[in-house]
């Protein structure tokens, strides 16, 4: 593993905000093409770590690297925040195209690509619909498409399904499992949900209470491709037990 240059790396990264230490000596490497889930208690600094990887803020100490080069500004990874943040004045098509347009891609090109993505996922009938008319699940799908359409090699997802009800959440997890192979990207997912972490990720890292450090670093050795049924297998239950134990100890 050490021979592969990590896609993302935090070394000794610490962050202090308003006199409060949020991250302390964080060492974490994410392999290219892998799916990492970050899990930990509320307010542990998971989102802060994701912000660092997104280049949205610099660490107070230590360094953040992408492909071996220091990450100094945003724009090189795709980032999906906790709330879907769909713009009410843009319809679904224009919302999906937002990221591309924001980076200066001509509107026509961006919209054509967005339409392609919607068609690919069978959502073209929603292209002209405005966000207030969408269900929570559809909003999340649109936000996720907006993120993936950027075509960046790294996806940072900050509790993307956190606001959804259990059933919708399951269906979106299934959807993400399904499209995972097509994305061919390194994915870092922040979540509260132990099942979600094991189901989706190759590796689950728990963070301790603030200031956050790496607690348990767990390889998910369940076979791929996974389906939603993986949640009932013996291996899954064993991993879940270890994670819950680690999180319990962290609290």
């Amino acid at each position: 593993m050490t021979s592969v240059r990590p896609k993302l790396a935090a070394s000794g990264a610490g962050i202090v905000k308003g006199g409060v230490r949020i991250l302390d000596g964080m060492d974490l490497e994410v392999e290219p093409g892998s799916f990492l889930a970050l899990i930990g208690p509320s307010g542990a600094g998971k989102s802060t770590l994701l912000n660092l990887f997104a280049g949205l803020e610099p660490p107070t100490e230590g360094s953040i690297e992408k492909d071996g080069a220091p990450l100094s500004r945003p724009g090189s990874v795709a980032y999906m925040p906790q709330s879907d943040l769909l713009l009410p004045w843009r319809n679904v098509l224009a919302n999906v195209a937002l990221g591309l347009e924001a980076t200066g891609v001509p509107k026509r090109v961006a919209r054509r690509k967005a339409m392609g993505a919607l068609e690919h996922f069978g959502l073209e009938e929603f292209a002209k619909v405005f966000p207030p008319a969408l269900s929570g699940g559809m909003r999340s799908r649109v936000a996720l498409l907006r993120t993936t359409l950027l075509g960046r090699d790294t996806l940072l997802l900050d509790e993307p399904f956190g606001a959804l009800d259990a059933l919708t959440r399951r269906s979106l997890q299934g959807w993400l499992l399904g499209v995972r192979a097509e994305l061919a990207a390194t994915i870092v997912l922040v979540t509260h949900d132990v099942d979600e972490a094991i189901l989706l990720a190759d590796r689950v890292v728990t963070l301790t209470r603030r200031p956050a450090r790496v607690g348990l670093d767990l390889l998910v050795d369940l076979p791929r491709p996974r389906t939603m049924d993986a949640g009932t297998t013996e291996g899954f239950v064993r991993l879940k037990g270890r994670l819950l134990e680690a999180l319990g100890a962290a609290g």
Partner: protein
Amino acid sequence: MKRAFPTALPAVLLALLALVGWETLVRLFGVPEFLLPGPLAIAAAFWESRGLLLEHAGPTAAEALLGFIGAAVAGTASGLLINRSGLAERALYPWLVVSQTLPVIALAPILVTWFGYGMLPKVLVVVLFCFFPITVATVDGLRATDPDLIRLMRSFGAPRRRIFYMVEVPGALPFLFGGVRLAVTYCVIGAVVGEWVGSSKGLGFLMIQDKTQFEIPRLFAEIALLSAMGVSLFLLVAFVQRLVAPWTLFSEGR
């Protein structure tokens, strides 16, 4: 649009009821016309003097409209300036507030001495009446942008300028239209106040004449006409809002 008539119905019915009540009371108690004319007498006065009223309505409407446009430009410009520069905010904002505490009615005579009896002083009075709500709405609207939205745009790698016009400006429009709708109801009042102080035409000028000559039914007709003018401008703004920013009318704000 199909719903426009049924939604307007209660207001229209109430107005009819009030007018009928008013006419009945005036006739029942024999109220003299120079104190309170009935709606029918007012309508008759309007019809009799329709040429004169419309002739004087023109300048008033022009003053109100020009002043309103001036206020919209001055209001959004000062709002943008305050938003862009902290120095401009600290230097400008207190004085804009002070400008609102000055009684515009007392300023109007000074403006007339400076700029004469023409249209300019009236337009300036309207601008003074109207620009402040628009300034405040612009500043608040731009400031109200969801910080998460700005972070999302930054994460895309969007430059500052593109964040401004793709997210902050459209996000400020609901606030801006709120301010504009408020301002537009002031602009007819502003024009009339300007005319009261010194003019040779306009509905405000006519009102002063009719008051001294006890043409009370026509005075009421002028008030009704001014009110209709204000309502039309308000509806015009609402129509423009529906056209350029329909999402601001959705019940779900975000």
